[in-house]
């Protein structure tokens, strides 16, 4: 059992009681909600005649269903309109702070909370969304929950949970040029498998992780769940603190000093005990692309799609399904695979640094005629910053459509969808069957820079050929 890790410390700090069945009752320091997984929770609260216990500890925004082309109200899609209205009503009734469209602070919940300074080290954070693990980049313990658990947090600010085990993933050296946080996390998921993280929190550590910016760290923690780990985190350091400083909701003046003192005391001890430790060499990671139907089915840009014989018995079943669904042949190169749609956005890679990196690749180039390309900033703040830096113009000049903030084609709950068996080069997090809105649509996950390169060439390309 792990001891003295950041996870142990934060968990113990938030433990309210041991419940009769033996689970821990854990206090949730920050609860984030959105329109998709909250309405039924508010409904259940009403049925049970309960109130929101700590309305100040819940913050709402709207992201999954928002259209990214025309956001004027009412939305064209009646069901989407009904969902945003329900959230507006629930927030008003329960006095929950809501960052609505046009507030200047709306966006994907996992982009918004950090940029407002809501996400802080040492907190427990829950949200009805599996990518809540993102917030672990700040040294918080953050995890996704379902709607009944959203109900429990609203009603009690606590959850019944069993403590997770802790696996440290130590990344030596540093990433080479043209290789990004996305490539590293895809590599980790490929090496460990998509279910290795079940029952675990992942602590990402080592020189390669230390080197990453806060936004890159968010990309890593965001995809912990794709490796099966509900929670992923990184010990906070100076980068963490300076990212938070001066944000809207960050502690100010003498409170900042107090916060800093506490945050600096929060990290895994040098002699902490982990349930498991994995070490890998980040300098060996190359631009990585998924070829299949799970985020673990990835290869380096110059590799071939694995042969069945090269896979472990456990991976064969899903690999067979993947060859068929993707219409790819074992042994085929992933490089030069033609793409129809290019999508840059999502809670994994829709932040300003992602757009900057892609814009650098796109500058002065044109998107291939056969490709529909669009960029969806992760939040209104990201969009504003991109405009200030002229990044939106670089995207538009290259032939990308520049959209309004939202989750968009990461999960295709709005009108941004693949059609038929189109192939998409996507900076998002899931390549599941049908994920991007068409039951036969095919998704290749990669870094935003790689998506930009694919958009220009109309096929999967090595971004390193663009940035030398």
């Amino acid at each position, binding site marked *: 059992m792990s001891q003295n890790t950041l996870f142990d410390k934060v968990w113990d700090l938030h433990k*309210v009681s041991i419940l*009769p069945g033996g689970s821990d009752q854990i*206090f949730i320091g920050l609860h984030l909600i959105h329109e998709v997984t909250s309405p039924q929770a508010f409904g259940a609260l009403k049925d049970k005649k309960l109130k929101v216990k700590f309305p100040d500890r819940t913050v709402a925004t709207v992201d999954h269903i928002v259209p990214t082309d025309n956001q004027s109200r009412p939305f064209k899609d009646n069901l989407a309109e009904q969902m945003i209205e329900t959230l507006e009503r629930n927030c008003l009734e329960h006095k929950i702070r809501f960052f609505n469209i046009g507030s200047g602070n709306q966006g994907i919940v996992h982009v918004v909370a950090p940029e407002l300074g*809501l996400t802080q080290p040492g907190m427990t954070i829950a949200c009805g969304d599996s990518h809540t693990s993102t917030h672990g980049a700040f040294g918080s313990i953050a995890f996704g929950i*379902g709607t009944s658990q959203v109900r429990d947090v609203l009603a009690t600010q*606590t*959850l019944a949970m069993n403590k997770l085990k802790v696996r440290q993933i130590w990344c030596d050296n540093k990433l080479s040029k043209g290789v990004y946080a996305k490539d590293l996390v895809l590599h980790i998921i490929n090496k460990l498998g*998509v279910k290795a993280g079940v029952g675990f929190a992942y602590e990402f550590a080592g020189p390669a992780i230390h080197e990453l910016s806060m936004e890159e760290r968010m990309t890593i923690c965001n995809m912990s769940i794709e490796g099966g*780990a509900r929670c992923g985190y990184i010990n906070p350091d100076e980068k963490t603190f300076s990212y938070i400083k001066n944000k809207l909701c*960050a502690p100010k003046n003498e409170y900042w000093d107090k916060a800093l003192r506490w945050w600096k005391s929060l990290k895994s001890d040098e002699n902490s005990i982990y349930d498991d430790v994995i070490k890998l060499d980040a300098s060996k990671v190359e631009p990585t692309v998924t070829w299949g139907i799970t985020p673990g089915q990835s290869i380096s840009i110059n590799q071939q799609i694995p042969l069945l014989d090269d896979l472990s018995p456990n991976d064969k079943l899903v690999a067979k399904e993947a060859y068929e669904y993707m219409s790819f042949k074992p042994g085929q190169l992933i490089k030069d695979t033609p793409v129809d749609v290019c999508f840059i956005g999502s809670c994994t890679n829709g932040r300003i640094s992602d757009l900057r990196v892609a814009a650098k690749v796109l500058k002065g180039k044109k998107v291939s005629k056969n490709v529909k390309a669009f960029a969806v900033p992760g939040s209104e703040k990201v969009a504003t910053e991109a405009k200030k830096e002229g990044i939106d113009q670089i995207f538009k000049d290259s032939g990308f459509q520049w959209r309004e903030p939202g989750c968009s084609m990461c999960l295709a709950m709005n009108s941004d969808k693949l059609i038929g068996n189109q192939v998409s080069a996507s900076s998002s997090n899931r390549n599941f069957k049908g994920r991007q809105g068409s039951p036969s649509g095919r998704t290749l996950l990669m870094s935003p820079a790689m998506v930009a390169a694919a958009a220009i060439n109309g096929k999967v390309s090595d971004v390193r050929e663009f940035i030398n």
Partner: protein
Amino acid sequence: MKSEFTPPIGKISNINGQCISLIGNDIDTDRIIPARFLKCVNFDSLGESVFEDDRKTLGGNHPFDLKENKNASILVVNSNFGCGSSREHAPQALMRWGIKSIIGESFADIFYSNCIAIGIPCFTLPKKSIEEIQNYCDNQFLFLEIDLKNSLAKSKDLNFNLEINESSRKMFLSGEWDATSTLLDNKNLIENKFNQLPYVKFNINFL
């Protein structure tokens, strides 16, 4: 037509029913219920859309479409079932279709806690035993009697010692899987905890 849906309430100690086998690893919640069905403010109509895209692709041959599985209530799956999105819509859709319990090689964490929270006991068995059940189901009906008190599954021909997390098992037997009121019992402890948290004191700009 299925009989009208009634959600589970209170103590759950026995589940008796016919097994339905669904073969495949890493079956994600997008497949269980595609995102377009999440555009709803209640869960009521999700049952008919469970596995919608997989079922369409198989043109009537999906286990959830087969006539002989119409009354099944114990789902038998392989490894990492329910991975991906945290959408509770997935177990809600399964439950509204008629599933009352799931036996598998392994489950994704969030899916598992969602199942507990809505009253669907999930058990694990080694790969070999799962395959034994799935092979059996290929040829004939398998009715299992699940006894949560002793973590046993019995049938005419097959018997298994089921594995289940001890705290989940206790929660089903006591009815505390529906956790809200148990959590609220500790109202004072919750207040105390809140007041002890270091960050509550320095987050005056928080909201």
